[in-house]
């Protein structure tokens, strides 16, 4: 069973090498002539006006939260799709109720205007 994951492991290793190699190559091969002016932060030619970290609006958070909820729903759909033939009508009804409840949630979101961006 675990053999199936060998390609995944290969991918991880290849990905690591692929990401690390250019960095190392640049570090080793590139010319390095440091200068304080090069290090200075700027935006469009000016000195930076403010800290780049600023407060996000709370609505981003709401979007992310709603995304998690529906992402979880998807996670429950995977095993269901795999065994659908075994569990028959009962399984379909069970998932129907599950999705139905979340459809009500979606309706609620929609009507409350949580899906709109002002």
């Amino acid at each position, binding site marked *: *069973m*675990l053999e199936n*994951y060998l390609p995944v*492991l290969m991918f991880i290793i290849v990905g690591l090498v692929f990401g690390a190699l250019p960095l190392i190559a640049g570090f080793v091969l590139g010319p390095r002539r440091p200068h304080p002016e090069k290090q200075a932060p700027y935006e469009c030619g000016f000195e930076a006006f403010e800290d780049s*970290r*600023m*407060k*996000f*609006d*709370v*609505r*981003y*958070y*709401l979007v*992310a*939260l*709603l*995304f*998690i*909820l529906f*992402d*979880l*729903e*998807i*996670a*429950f759909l*995977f*095993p*269901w799709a*795999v*065994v659908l033939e*075994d*569990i028959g009508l*009962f*399984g379909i009804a*069970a*998932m129907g*109720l*599950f999705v139905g*409840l*979340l459809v*009500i*949630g979606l309706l*609620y*979101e929609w009507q*409350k*205007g*949580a899906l*709109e*961006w*002002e």
Partner: protein
Amino acid sequence: MEQVIFYLFAGVLLFAATMVISVRNPVYAALFLVLAFFNAAVLWVLVGAEFLGLALIVVYVGAVMVLFLFVLMMLDVNTAAMREGFTRYLPVGVVVAGLMLLQLIVVILSEQVDLIGGLIPEPSAEVDNVHAIGQVLYTAYVYPFEIAAVILLLAIVAAISLTMRRQRPNTQRQDVPKQLSVTKEQRLRLVQIDKKNRRHTSDT
């Protein structure tokens, strides 16, 4: 081979977890948490809990971490102030952690607890993990499964009721039907220009 992989990923997991609580920049901490989740997912796959491993990546790495990053950005945290209590509470923390470690060691070493090959059955070789979960989740465990759906619905209601309270007055919003039903008269104004004087008479 399997053991080598285990120790490799467990090592990275421990490293990432330590970094989560020790790096200064909270965004880096969140990214190290992603690394920790990945490694934990690999460990789960190694013991045969494939579905949980994949769910960890899909749900936690994909969604929860996005939320964490949003929260971090939203809070505008003062990292220096957050670290103030660190040394003060360190001894207590060490004592608590030590106690928990001790408990775990007692449990693992006790003769009554046969962790290897105990009561928990070995993962079956014929049915893979996702099938096994699917076969019980929607039948024998249908009651908890539906409760989970209700909790998700509750989470939607709670999140929206806490964040969407008032309509702010000065926000611009798109009203698509209004945009589509707009007529020429609402957007276009014809102005008569006096040709002789070549001057605009921009009366209404």
